[in-house]
């Protein structure tokens, strides 16, 4: 099974993790247009490539970021949202 390295708990089988989706910047709700907002709410960058994603280590509840190539499922790096680099 695929291994994913939690910055705090170390490498674990990916079944211990919950996928939180791609990190997506939210437009300013007060200034953006309805179209910009619905684009943010519904549309996704579905094209394969390296993406920044939210992942959660289930047993510990640790949320962190992973840079993953969605073509090959290779994980380039994982780090806490505060920016702490994970030892890989």
């Amino acid at each position, binding site marked *: 099974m695929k291994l994913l390295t939690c910055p705090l*708990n170390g490498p*674990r089988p990916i*079944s211990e993790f919950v996928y939180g989706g791609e990190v997506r910047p939210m437009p300013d709700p007060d200034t953006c247009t309805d179209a910009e907002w619905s684009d943010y709410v519904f549309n996704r960058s579905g094209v394969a490539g390296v993406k920044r994603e939210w992942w959660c280590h*289930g*047993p*510990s*509840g640790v949320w962190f970021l992973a840079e993953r190539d969605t073509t090959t499922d290779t994980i380039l790096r994982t780090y806490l949202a505060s920016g702490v680099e994970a030892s890989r």
Partner: protein
Amino acid sequence: MTRRSPLADWHLQATYRSAEAPVWLQDCSWRQRFGCKGPQASTWLESLGLTVPQPANSCAMDTNDVLVARLGATEFLVEAMGLHGQTVVGARERFPVPGVYPVIRQDAAFTLGGPRANDLLLETCSYPFASDANGTLVVMTSMVGVGVTVVPHRVRDTTRFHVWCDPSFGLYLWSTLVEIAEEMGGGAIASDGLKSTLRGES
């Protein structure tokens, strides 16, 4: 009033093995424990005279058998491993403390031991415990589909494993493991602490 183990219903029709069993489980839910997190948690625990482990996911046991486990970076589980949990009860009663957030810990807690304990783990959990049982490690992982916290603990030449899980999963986790242990010629063992749970202690 009576504290009741999350596994109490199981004990009602329990058959216990001897501690000589190749693999055994012992209900330790009765132990006094509490949890805390928050910016001041670590300093506060130190101020109580507890030994606070520094690295994430490590633990320390102080002289009067109080275990302080660091869960991740900023959360702690404090448990009196001995029969008398006065320190812990005392600390628990000091809440609220500024910058320290209490974490209620009503866990199902048990100890897994015996020469074949690791074989049981290999059937139920994907974490390679055998590779590192240095006694200060805290592992949060999944066991038969239940989130658990595990502290491997070297006793002489064998390793024992202290396991904690959410009480609502307790019966399921415990009876599943006991069933497998029994297939291995082991099973649940009784303990003084256990009796006092059923008898109740105030």
